C-alpha cells in the first residue's frame, strides 16, 4: 500500500466554499445576522462555543457561529485555531468563584440555603410548548420585552457575594476538611495527556469538553454504569471579575469579567481512613458561559473519576483515560469528519483483499478464509 499525490478538485473546492457562504443569503429576502445578535439572542449556543473553544472571546465566538452557519463544533474549532496563533502573555492569579456576581443560584440539597435561592434566567420551568407568536415577532413588541422588564428597576440591597453551600456542609463536619492546593495546574494547551493525569488536567479537559460528550458519559453513570447518585449542592451562574496585576503598580486591577456556570454535586458518603468520621464525597464542574447540563455532567464525571482513581475503575465513566480522551468535541469531530476525505488507496487495498478472498473461495468452495477478514 502506498500514498500517491494527486491533484484536481481545486475549482470544485473553491466553488463549494463560495456556495457555503452564499447559502447564508440564498434563503430569500432576509438580512445578514449581526454577530452581536447571535451573542445576545442565542446566548446559550454562544456560551457552548465559548467553553468548547476554550477561549472567552464573545465577539469571535459570535463571528465563528455566523461563519460556520451555526455549527457549534466548527465554531469552537475556529476559536481553538485562533487561540493557537496568539502569544501567551500571562497566567492570571488564582481566582475564587465566591466573588462571582451571580444571576442564578439554586440548590437541590436544601431549600433554605444561606442567602436564598434565586432562579434567574432558568429554562427548567418551560413547558416546551411552541410560542407561535415568535414566528412573526415585530420590532416594537421585541423592544417592549426589555423595556417592560427594566421598568421600575430598583436599587436592590443584595450582598455582593453569597456563601457557598458546600462551606456550610463543611462547617457541619459533613464534608472532609480541605486545605488549599497551590500546585501548578496541568496546562492541556501545551502538554499531551499521559495517564495517569492530575485532577487539574481532568478538570481543564472537561471544562472545554463537548457538552454532548460529557453528558453521554455522565448519563451512563446516572443510569447505573456507576454509582455517583448526585445531589446538586449548588448550581451558580454569574460573572467572575478577572483581576490582573497593573503594569505599573503591580496591584490587582479588574481587567474584565467572564460569565461562568459552576456546579458542586454531593455524592455518596465514604468511610475515611484512620477511623475518622465518614463524610460525603463531592464533584466539581465549571465552564465558560451559561451551560448547566455541562457543569452538572462535568461534576458527576469529576466524582466518578475520583472514585475510579481511589478504588480502580469499574465503569467507563470512572476511567479517566476513557472519559478524557473521548469528550473533546474538536478532536472527536475531526476524527469523524476525516472519514469524508479521500481514502482511495486504503479502500483500493480493501477491494483487492476482498477480491482475493472471493477468488480463493471460488477455488475452494465450502472452505472459509478468515485470514483477511476484518
Amino acid at each position, binding site marked *: 500500500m502506498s500514498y500517491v499525490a494527486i491533484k484536481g478538485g481545486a475549482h470544485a473546492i473553491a466553488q463549494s466554499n463560495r456556495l457555503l457562504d452564499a447559502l447564508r443569503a440564498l434563503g430569500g429576502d432576509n438580512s445578514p445576522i449581526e454577530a452581536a445578535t447571535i451573542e445576545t439572542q442565542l446566548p446559550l449556543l454562544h456560551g457552548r462555543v465559548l467553553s468548547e473553544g*476554550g*477561549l*472567552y*472571546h464573545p465577539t469571535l465566538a459570535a463571528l465563528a457561529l455566523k461563519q460556520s452557519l451555526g455549527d457549534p463544533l466548527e465554531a469552537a474549532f475556529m476559536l481553538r485555531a485562533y*487561540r493557537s496563533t496568539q*502569544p*501567551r*502573555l500571562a*497566567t*492570571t492569579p*488564582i*481566582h475564587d*468563584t*465566591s466573588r462571582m*456576581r*451571580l*444571576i442564578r*443560584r439554586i440548590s437541590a440539597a436544601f431549600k*433554605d440555603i444561606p442567602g*436564598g*435561592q*434565586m*432562579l*434567574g434566567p*432558568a429554562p427548567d420551568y418551560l413547558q416546551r410548548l411552541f410560542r407561535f407568536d415568535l414566528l412573526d415577532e415585530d420590532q416594537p413588541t421585541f423592544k417592549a420585552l426589555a423595556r417592560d422588564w*427594566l421598568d421600575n428597576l430598583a*436599587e*436592590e440591597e*443584595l450582598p455582593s457575594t453569597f456563601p457557598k453551600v*458546600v*462551606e456550610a456542609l463543611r462547617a457541619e463536619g459533613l464534608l472532609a476538611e480541605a486545605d488549599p*492546593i497551590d*500546585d501548578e*495546574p496541568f496546562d492541556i*494547551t501545551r502538554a499531551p495527556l499521559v495517564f495517569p493525569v492530575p*485532577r*487539574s*488536567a481532568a*478538570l*481543564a479537559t472537561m*471544562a*472545554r469538553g463537548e457538552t454532548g460528550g460529557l453528558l453521554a458519559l455522565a448519563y451512563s453513570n446516572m443510569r447505573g454504569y456507576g454509582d455517583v447518585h448526585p445531589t446538586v449542592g449548588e448550581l451558580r451562574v454569574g460573572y467572575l471579575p*478577572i483581576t*490582573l*496585576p*497593573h*503594569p*505599573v*503598580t503591580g*496591584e*490587582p*486591577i*479588574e*481587567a*474584565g469579567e467572564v460569565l461562568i456556570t459552576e456546579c*458542586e454535586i454531593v455524592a455518596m458518603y465514604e468511610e475515611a481512613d484512620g477511623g475518622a468520621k465518614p463524610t460525603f464525597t*463531592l464533584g*466539581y464542574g*465549571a*465552564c465558560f458561559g451559561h451551560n448547566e447540563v455541562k457543569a452538572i455532567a462535568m461534576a458527576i464525571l469529576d466524582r466518578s473519576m475520583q472514585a475510579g482513581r481511589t478504588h480502580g475503575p469499574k465503569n467507563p465513566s470512572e476511567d479517566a483515560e476513557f472519559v478524557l480522551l473521548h469528550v473533546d468535541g474538536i478532536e472527536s469531530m475531526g476524527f469523524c469528519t476525516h472519514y469524508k476525505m479521500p481514502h482511495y488507496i486504503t479502500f483500493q487495498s480493501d477491494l483487492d483483499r476482498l477480491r482475493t478472498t472471493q477468488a480463493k473461495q471460488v477455488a475452494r468452495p465450502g472452505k472459509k478464509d478468515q485470514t483477511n477478514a476484518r
Partner: protein
Amino acid sequence: MTLPERGLWSRALMAADEEAVIVLAERLSLQHDARPAGQPRAGLALLRLRESVALDTFYLGEIPVATARVALRAPDGLYVDGGAVLMDDSTELAAAIAVLDGVLAHDLAGANEVADLVRKGQKTIDREGRIRNAMLSRTRVDFALMGEAGDDTHS
C-alpha cells in the same frame, strides 16, 4: 459620584464610549508628551481557578489580554507612568487607557476629564449591576409548606 479606586479605572473606561476614550487619550498624549514604555501587547492569558470542593486549582480556559505602559511628562519635567491591562485584544485601546490612567493617577492636566469618563463608565457598570440584582431579587424563591400562607401568588 465619587471616583472609584484605581483598580477599577480600566474596566470603567472600557465600559465608557470607546471613541471618547481614544479621542481624549490622543489629545492628552500630545499634551503630556506620552511615549510608550515598552511595546503594547495583545495575546492570551490562562485563567486559573480554584475549585470549591477540594480547593485545588486548574485552568478554566483562556482569555484575551491587551496591555500597555506609557510614560508621561509631568509639569516638573520628570516622567511618570501610566498603565493598563484589559480583557480585550486591542493594543490601541490598551495604550489609550494607559495614558488616561497615568494622567488621572498623577493628577496631570486633563485629569478631571478622565475622571468624568471613568464615572460615566462606572455608571454603565452600576446599571448593569442593578439589572443583575433585579434578576436575582425578582426570581427569589419564596418557599412555604403546602397550604401555608405565603404561597407564591405574586406575578
